């Protein structure tokens, strides 16, 4: 029972952080489960993928209705992420745990650096950008035009691969892809990525769930916590200064990256 409560609370924290920063939360869930609860990496990745679906579906329901997510773009890139996640999920079962831990440490460092760079070059005038899903070609059409679609589909394959392999939603790859490469405003990029990560995570989750890598009973408190935390994060998000959250998040990422790297380099 205390373990369930701790899993629930950890899920709330990961879900809230994820919602506040536009991520699925997987980047925190995998280290929490492996380093904090001693779960094998494959079980942690499977649990994380299912939790990411919960974060995504809950938030995307709001974002899609509000016209913040570009559904058509998400569907196009979703083709690449699904293929990537499927191959990543299948390959993950063959990759040694130390290699996965090393890859995860590298991903954490990349995420931390990306977030710190974003902190310095934060766009300010994009809060009112929306996409009207009912009128893609009408007067309310998005004021941007997606560019470099074929390259982005290739990039989304990479995002899906990282997702299936490491149990994250892939938002750390898709947000920069949609924003920087395709030219979508940051809020639309975040909302579109949020819609996509549920599709991506599902493609990887099926393999883990049906292969028996994750124990549904053990994962249930984490998933419930993440769903609750994501709702909480979305509710209180506007009351926090994002810059402070990012700094705090980067410190956490740095520590977790160090622990994961130690795990990868530890003598057998």
């Amino acid at each position, binding site marked *: 029972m205390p373990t369930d409560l701790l899993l629930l609370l950890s899920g709330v924290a990961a879900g809230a952080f994820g919602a506040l920063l536009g991520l699925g939360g997987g980047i925190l869930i995998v280290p929490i489960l492996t380093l904090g609860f001693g779960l094998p990496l494959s079980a942690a990745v499977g649990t994380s993928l*299912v939790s990411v*679906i*919960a974060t*995504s*579906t*809950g938030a*995307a*329901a*709001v974002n*899609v*209705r509000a*016209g913040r997510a570009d*559904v*058509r773009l998400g*569907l*196009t890139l*979703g*083709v690449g992420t*699904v*293929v990537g*996640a*499927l191959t990543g*999920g*299948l390959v993950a*079962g063959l990759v040694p745990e130390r290699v996965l831990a090393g890859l995860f440490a590298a991903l954490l460092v990349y995420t931390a650096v990306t977030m710190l760079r974003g902190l310095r070059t934060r766009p300010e005038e994009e809060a009112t950008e929306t996409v009207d*899903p*009912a009128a*893609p070609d009408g007067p309310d059409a998005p004021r941007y035009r997606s560019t470099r679609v074929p390259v982005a589909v290739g990039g989304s394959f990479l995002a899906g691969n990282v997702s299936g392999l490491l149990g994250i939603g892939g938002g750390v790859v898709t947000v920069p892809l949609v924003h920087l490469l395709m030219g979508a405003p940051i809020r639309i990029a975040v909302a579109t990525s949020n819609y996509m990560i*549920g*599709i991506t*995570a*599902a*493609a*990887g*989750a*099926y*393999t*883990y*769930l*049906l*292969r*028996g890598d994750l*124990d*549904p*009973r053990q*994962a*249930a*408190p984490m*998933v*419930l916590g993440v*769903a609750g935390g994501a709702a909480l994060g979305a509710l209180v998000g506007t009351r926090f200064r994002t810059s402070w959250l990012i700094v705090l998040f980067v410190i956490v990422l740095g520590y977790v990256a160090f622990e994961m790297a130690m795990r990868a380099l530890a003598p057998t």
Partner: protein
Amino acid sequence: MTTPPREPPPLGPPIALTLRAGTLLAVAGLAIGYVVELVTGQSARGNVIELIAGGGAGAFIGAGFVALTLTPLVALGVASVVLLRRGERSRGLVALLAFGLLLASLAAGAIVGGSS
């Protein structure tokens, strides 16, 4: 007298409704299963299929996981149908392709799960 052209069905609301319904169903299943387990004291273990087949608290938890993981798949199906009904043929086919690929992931998961 000519009838005015019919408005194309909106894309966002049906997808949003599907996502919301799936999330609520999943969270309800997991929460009910957890409460039933607390009340009865029976802890079920096993994969999703074993949990559902076993009945009791585990069946609710298993059903919650099934609802959660199938929600993106159903939402993709809804998106492809709505886009095709709107006359956006190429976008609809892209959505259908994504739906088919996700379905293939499910089949691959079942094959890998069955063989391990």
